[in-house]
């Protein structure tokens, strides 16, 4: 009843090709963005529950936004282009450390040439974006093998990236500005003279990044490039026969995906963690991102958000519910339970609903469209 598109006639090509052709979708999105951009800051400003303490902003919304951004990146590669990657944590790390180096100034002594390259510290925004760009370049490099190898073999190749960069950022002290402990701190978050410090400011910053990138990604995947990726995913040889260049399609997928993941990594390090060490981007992070995409929905931008929300909230619920019910579990048991639940959920979703929660939502929409008179 609520979700009826009867009477919404598209009279121009532009309307037909809009991102959200249905009015209800547009309204829902506008309301959601309104809540995110205006509602949350207002509530936080007036200390209204549950925003009274910073806990919700700092511990849930901030990681949710950044991980959702990273999940969009992973989804472009895995969900849209069908190139499975277990190295997304490494690309987050590359984004984070390149942004860190650029934000604190790069100095490359080239002793054998007799001079040194020095770049003064760049503004934070620029270094975050350039961090993403660095990740994109490395992503292309590691995407090159995907032209000869595919599927499972590629997964191992991306694992190589993961372990290699774990080691690089742990052992090559140039990247950490020779910090003795190996952990580094982000430079002050200074955007055009505005200092981003309080949780609500950090939240707004990430929200802007995520909104912009989500719209860009959404537009990209429904355009020419996105359709090329999907053709490669569905059957690469057939795609090649109809004139899609696998080289171009695969490498662009790697580049775009690593760029987004790199930006997310830089945000994760700069805005969420503040100071971090290579362990923050280990293989566990890669698997976590892959889970978000599988659970949320392969090949769906919305799925990235749903998956990120789910993976962040489940452990918290597991922590809270048993203790509220009076059967507190030990932290060990909770961790193990989490493992089991995630594992079963992945298997279950792969069997029953390979397109994840996002598909469930769109089934819900289909049903609402006919309600209350199903055929």
């Amino acid at each position, binding site marked *: 009843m609520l979700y009826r598109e009867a009477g919404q006639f598209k009279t121009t090509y532009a309307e037909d090709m809009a991102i959200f052709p249905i009015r209800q979708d547009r309204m829902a999105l506008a309301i959601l963005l309104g809540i995110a951009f205006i509602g949350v800051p207002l509530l936080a400003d007036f200390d209204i529950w549950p925003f009274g303490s910073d806990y919700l902003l700092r511990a849930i919304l901030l990681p949710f936004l950044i991980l959702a951004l990273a999940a969009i990146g992973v989804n472009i590669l895995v969900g849209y282009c069908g190139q499975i990657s277990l190295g997304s944590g490494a690309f987050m790390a590359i984004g984070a450390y390149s942004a860190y180096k650029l934000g604190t100034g790069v100095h490359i002594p080239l002793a054998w040439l007799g001079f040194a390259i020095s770049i003064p510290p760049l503004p934070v925004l620029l270094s975050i974006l350039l961090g993403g760009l660095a990740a994109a370049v490395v992503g292309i490099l590691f995407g090159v093998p995907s032209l000869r190898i595919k599927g499972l073999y590629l997964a191992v190749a991306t*694992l190589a990236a993961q372990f290699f960069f774990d080691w690089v950022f742990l*052992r090559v002290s140039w990247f950490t500005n020779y910090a003795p402990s190996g952990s580094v701190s982000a430079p002050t978050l200074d955007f055009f003279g505005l200092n981003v410090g309080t949780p609500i400011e950090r939240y707004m910053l990430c929200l802007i990044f995520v909104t912009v990138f989500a719209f860009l990604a959404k537009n990209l995947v429904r355009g020419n490039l996105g359709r090329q990726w999907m053709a490669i995913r569905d059957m690469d040889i057939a795609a090649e026969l109809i004139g899609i260049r696998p080289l171009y399609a695969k490498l662009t997928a790697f580049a775009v995906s690593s760029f987004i993941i790199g930006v997310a990594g830089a945000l994760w390090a700069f805005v969420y963690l503040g100071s971090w060490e290579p362990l923050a981007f280990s293989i566990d992070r890669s*698997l976590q991102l892959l889970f978000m995409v599988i659970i949320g929905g392969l090949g769906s931008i919305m799925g990235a958000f749903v998956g990120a929300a789910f993976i962040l909230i489940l452990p918290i619920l597991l922590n809270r519910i048993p203790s509220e019910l009076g059967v507190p579990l030990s932290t060990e048991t909770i961790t193990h339970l989490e493992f089991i639940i995630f594992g079963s959920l*992945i298997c279950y979703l792969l069997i029953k609903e390979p397109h994840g929660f996002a598909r469930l939502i769109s089934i819900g929409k289909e049903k609402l469209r006919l309600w209350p008179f199903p055929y």
Partner: protein
Amino acid sequence: MSGVLYSLVALGFVLIFKASGVFNFAQGAMVLLAGLALVRSLDLLVANGFPLWVAIVLGIGFAAVIMAITAWLIERFVIGPLVNQDGLTLFMSTIGVTFILEGAAQMIFGSGSYPLRLFPTDAWFLFENLFPGGILVNKLDVWGGFIAGVLVAGLAIFFQRTKTGRALRAVADDHMAAQSVGIPIGWIWFVVWLVAGLVALVAATVWGTKLGVQFSITFLALKALPVLIIGGLTSVPGAIVGGLIVGAGEKLAEVFLGSHIGGGIEYWFAYVLALAVLLVRPQGLFGERIIERI
């Protein structure tokens, strides 16, 4: 000599891939489960006053039963329903299985680190007359090599000579054709996962004797992946040779290269090696060439 141990784990991968086309990410978790089941039941039996050899026999039997149950559950609830899906879906489902097994194994059997003493771990000295100091040979490594050899021989006979082995190869070639000539595919897959589970048990006993049974044993599986790539996904001898290459290669690299660039390159050397092999020969050293057509 850790190469032999990598080979043992890689064997489990190869078996499952050969017989069902599933790339089994869960092999490491299976090693963990088998090891924990064995070591915990051993401790329990010994604590209750059984003589050691009875405890060992019973413990291994118990672990084998656990692996059989696991194999049945996996076939029944995960792999069975996913029949005829493409490789990537199956691969991701085994990541899910990995998490279930890791969580369940530690929840049931505890998540500490447990020492396992089945094989002698002291060392022999060989050729003391030829070299100053001689060559240090660990008895455990000899045992590991011996067991790997027996396993390979046994599996080769199993694949080539028995009826089930022939059925396995038929299933690997074409699920549907195998089904249509009356091969029970569910049973075959159960057998495959069972054998993989038993190989995991063997790997767990050898590796557990060396390092103790603990969670980090699952990382062994990640080490086995490059072994697999180098040897070829479908080749049992490839797994052995690949394991030896990786085992020797990473030690040599650590000694000769690692000292120049900071050390610790054991972590990724195997992967870079695998990447290099992939670029030159995508099917691995012993793998079957992949032919694609529409």
